[in-house]
């Protein structure tokens, strides 16, 4: 359950979020629509604790985001940022599995999950073994999506997840996302 209560945020003189109140219940999928620069990313960043509101508050499960540690937030939120944010020195698989590895979780189990998801969004294992600069923008975006989903956190934030995809892949991915969110 995400609650946003009268949140304001400005950058310099530009007010990006002018007092927003919003409540998102568990199990719901929401889509933010709006023109470029209207504050979609800022809202996601506030929920993920990357930026804090000038005024008002953001809570997840009745806890203030600002009171949570980075690790606690990360355990609750899978966040795929714009253009992925993949680490250039790791190949696709290592990028996806890094959150698993640093938590000391079962790698074999995570790999199974990774392979199932990868197949669902048309990513092959050879593609996943390449470095980010060796694959296409659309492939990168899907690797980043895998990384966001790998821990199976209760909250998934996707920032423009379909922007760099061609129409066919986009349709497929939309379908897959739908099925993922249904689960």
């Amino acid at each position, binding site marked *: 359950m995400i609650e946003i209560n009268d949140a304001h945020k400005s950058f310099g003189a530009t007010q990006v979020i002018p007092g927003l109140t919003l409540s998102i219940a568990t199990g719901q999928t929401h889509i933010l629509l709006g023109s470029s620069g209207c504050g979609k990313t800022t809202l996601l960043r506030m929920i993920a604790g990357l930026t804090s509101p000038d005024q008002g508050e953001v809570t997840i499960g009745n806890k203030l985001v600002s009171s949570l540690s*980075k690790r606690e937030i*990360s355990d609750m939120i899978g966040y795929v*940022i714009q253009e992925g944010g993949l*680490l*250039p020195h*790791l190949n696709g698989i290592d990028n996806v599995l*890094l959150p698993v590895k*640093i938590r000391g979780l079962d790698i074999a189990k995570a790999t199974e999950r990774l392979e199932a998801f990868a197949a669902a969004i048309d990513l092959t294992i050879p593609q996943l073994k390449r*470095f*980010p600069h060796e694959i296409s923008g659309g492939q990168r975006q899907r690797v980043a999506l895998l990384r966001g989903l790998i821990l199976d956190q209760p909250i998934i934030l996707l920032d423009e997840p379909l922007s760099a995809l061609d129409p066919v892949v986009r349709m497929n991915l939309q379908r897959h996302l739908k099925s993922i969110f249904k689960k």
Partner: protein
Amino acid sequence: MKILAIFILLMSSAQAKTLKVGSKNFTESYILAEIVAQIAESVGEADVERRFGLGGTGITFQALTKGEIHLYPEYTGTISESILKDSSLKDYKRLNEKLANQNLTMSESLGFNNTYALAIKDSLLRELNLSKLSQLNTHNNIPAAFSHEFMKRGDGLVKLQRHYGFKLKDVKAMEHSLAYQALEDGKVDLVEVYSTDAKIEKYKLIILEDDLNFFPAYLSVLLANSNLKEEFPQTWQVLESRLVGKIDNKTMTKLNALVELDGLSFSQAARFFLEGKQIQKNLLPAWNWDRIILRTKEHLKLVILSLVMAIFIGLPLGIIASQNKFIGQFLLSLNGVIQTIPSLALLCLLIPFFGIGPKPAIIALFLYALLPIVRGTHAGLVSIDIKLKESAQLMGLSKFQRLRFVLLPLASPSIMSGIKTSAIINVGTATLAAFIGAGGLGQIIVTGLALNDQDMILQGAIPAGALALVVHAGFELLDKLFVPVALRRN
């Protein structure tokens, strides 16, 4: 009984004290120090350690006062002018009184006077009709080259010009042995010489008459720690009896010439003086590989130890500097300041704390190696895309994990290039460590400079250059180990 005797012998040899003999980095000082060392060895009261080729009066005298050496050959003029800074001190008794205050003592004169003099080529004597220093008044545009020491010291160029009332218009500062070469090449016409210099004969030089009696006496003496007399009484006594008044100007010039012109080693020249036998010249092989290998090992030790220290300190400093802007600025500018201290000055400054030998050299090299590493680490870390840092945060990496898995790998190309720069700078700078008795390839270069022996200089310089190339290649390999494959530039 025999076993007991051997045992006692072993005991005594294990306990034998060491007499450390120093010298400056020019031929005459090496020869005299070698004579002292050979006499001390023949007395057998102590083990003898040779710490030769220390850079200039400043470093050698520092080494003496800090007990790093027991004695070295010095000149009365240098003692009064450069060390005690009181040119009124002339006679043996008053000099020794003053030295006693600093816990030092000196022998009586060994017999020769190696004073400064100015000299020109003999061909110029007729051409310019120049034979006396006072005539430089009318020849003040003559191109001249003097050593740094002569240009700075109390009884050097400044006072000479004031005394005679001329002002030379074209003066270059140059390493003493290079000045002769410049003279030979016709780049300069006037140089300073020492009156026992073998090169006066070689280059056919005329010493200009000191007609207004400016140059003080530079009588050769042994300058020693006061406690030397008590620690090694017999050695000191024999040194005095065999050397005081025993080396006249002609003998010294001859010994210098044996080394510089005939190619004898210092120890051969010393043996010639002590045993009076003419020695076959050129016994040294052209390229002394044993020596080159030994010095290369010493050199590598200096470079590697200092570099490892610099990495262990520099890497954390670079990380700290990247976390906080103010600390970062402070650390980087502090490092920059250290970098601007000339290497010889830094080496000299470190003697009071670390003595002479490899220790201060390693510390100095460590300090020089810090900046590129701190800067490389800092630059590598601060240039990482904020998105990637946030990505790491969103994945739930702890601070340490972020460094380990994200930041350091991403910064590794820049960190490695900083370390590489440090290593290569250190290979070069380590040659200067010879000036404080730290050995290394610089030792060969310094000796070669003292002898004006270009071949010997190359024996030090070429391996040093080759070493820089090897180090560079080695780091290219290390890159493969530490820099993730996707981040390598080639």
